[in-house]
């Protein structure tokens, strides 16, 4: 495979009616790289993920995954190429158990069809057992054994976030898109999350695009940071360099509000 897990987004533009959501966004993810995508609310971070995973069709621009253009492909085709994502609000199937949610993530790996499934013979039974085995590995990795058979609607919020992450990893991707995995987590939850992200990076060598608001986590974990605001590219580079950049500070604190605070003081 050519540069597994690599992705390049070239000159992406996305409009909703007259509103320019993304304007000329280009970014690159190298094999095994952890790229943090930051910017204030409404900067268009999730829209970038949606364009990559095929949920939005960009007005202009291309998305190339492992030297293969995926712009315009159906989301399920993109997913089955080895590109998985999480959702900001979990997007879990609340009536299914944790295990069933993970098995839905394994969907593309089953070797069966509706007819065999209805008879529950041959390939249906075999793949059900084989995929259960794979799902159990993920359950072990995320340390959620005790919630395996719990219905998602009944488990704590923090665990739900982990399950959303686990389901994306269960898809067996080479590139993971994480949409604010730490949002709403407490300190302990964030520490667990950091550990999962690092293990995925170092042990599984899966590339990641990570949308994040917790700058401390970004500074500690990310290989590279990409900053955007109002759908436009601002800067990118190493965390140290980017987070000190005056433009980035200005975006996050706002120059005018800083001035006003200065005046009133």
């Amino acid at each position, binding site marked *: 495979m050519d540069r597994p897990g690599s992705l390049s987004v070239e000159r992406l533009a996305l409009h909703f009616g007259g509103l320019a959501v993304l304007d000329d966004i280009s970014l690159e993810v190298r094999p095994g790289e952890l790229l943090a995508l930051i910017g204030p609310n409404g900067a268009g971070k999730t829209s970038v993920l949606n364009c990559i995973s095929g949920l939005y069709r960009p007005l202009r621009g291309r998305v190339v995954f492992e030297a293969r253009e995926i712009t315009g492909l159906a989301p399920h085709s993109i997913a089955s190429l080895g590109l998985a994502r999480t959702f900001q609000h979990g997007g879990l199937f609340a009536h299914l158990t944790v295990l*069933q949610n993970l098995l839905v993530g394994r969907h593309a790996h089953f070797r069966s069809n509706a007819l065999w499934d209805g008879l529950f013979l041959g390939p249906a039974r075999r793949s059900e057992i084989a995929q259960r085995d794979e799902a159990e590995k993920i359950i072990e990795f995320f340390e959620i054994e005790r919630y395996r058979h719990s219905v998602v609607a009944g488990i704590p919020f923090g665990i739900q976030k982990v399950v959303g992450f686990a389901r994306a990893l269960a898809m067996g991707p080479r590139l993971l898109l994480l949409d604010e995995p730490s949002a709403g987590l407490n300190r302990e939850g964030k520490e667990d999350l950091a550990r999962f992200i690092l293990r995925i990076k170092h042990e599984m060598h899966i590339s990641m695009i990570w949308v994040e608001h917790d700058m401390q986590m970004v500074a500690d974990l990310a290989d590279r940071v990409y900053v955007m605001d109002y759908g436009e590219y601002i800067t990118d580079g190493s965390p140290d360099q980017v987070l000190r950049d005056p433009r980035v500070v200005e975006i996050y604190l706002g120059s005018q509000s800083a001035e006003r605070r200065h005046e009133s003081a």
Partner: protein
Amino acid sequence: MAYASGYFKTGYAVELRLVETRLQWTSLAALLVLLAAFPFVAPAFVIGIANQVFLAIVGAAALMLLMGYAGQISLGHAGLLAAGALSTGILFKETGAAFWVTLPASAAVGALLGVVFGLPSLRLKGLYLAVTTLALHFVVAFVGGEYETRRGFSSGIVIPPPSLGSFTLVEQSHWYFLLLALDVLVILFCLNLLRSRTGRALIAIRDHDVVAEALGIPVRQHKLAAFVISSTLTSIAGSVLAYYRGFVSIEAFTLYLTIDYVAMVIIGGMGSMLGVVLGAAFVVSFPHVIEALVRSIPWSQAIANEIFAVNYAAFGLIMILFLVFEPLGLVGIWRRVRNYFLLWPFRQTTVGGGGA
């Protein structure tokens, strides 16, 4: 899971079983013995009702797959039943084909119609989808009506009972066992579907279609599959119904029939195969119960002509009561009773989120 204690699993294959504990096996065996003994003790009238329930279960299971699991609302159910019954009727009238030809042929017609009924679901959701399936119901009704008048069968098509060799299926008690076997097969098929990847995909599409798509599930393909599987089963039910009645007339397949099936799914309990059985039994036996009740009051003669009106009103009232007070349907009631007796005489104060 439920009812199991001191029972440990030793492999994933064990966890996939539909029946797990010895108690469950025993209860299932007892149920089958009871069902098998039923036609030998029950009066013919009651066996007739049981047969209608068995027939309804096939159609209701099909609708449950589509509405309760795949989340696609369909109001074309009577149209699909009609398509199955009419295909059988027309094939018999035109070619004199036997049941082992007409039944698969009707299933094929159902599968094909499933694609047609399912196509709007690729674009439309919820009520809009419901309206398009409703339109298709009228198309089927129109085509059937045209056939009947043009060929001079305006009063309906008479179909002789199916026979194999010297055996002819006429008696209610024979039908009873055949329909029971059919129900077991259909329910097993549905349960299998639901415990495997296709079933999970349907539920995923029902709950979050965008997420399902992003997880690698071809959503359109699965929506169509849900329609095709459902309408194939429905068409088979229609074909068997034609043989059971010995008569097909498009007039029998009105919108009220669709409402009956939707009621079975809702009253039984959305998203449960047990709900299919309970709902079908409830809806089919309901008018008979109401009739018996009305007859039992002393001045029943005075309202004898209004019995249909009473029936519909009571049925409507029951539907509303279920929607308001027990959206989980009869299954919801059953689960609560079961959970209560699981710990009896102790009381369970907190109930965990959801149940199997």
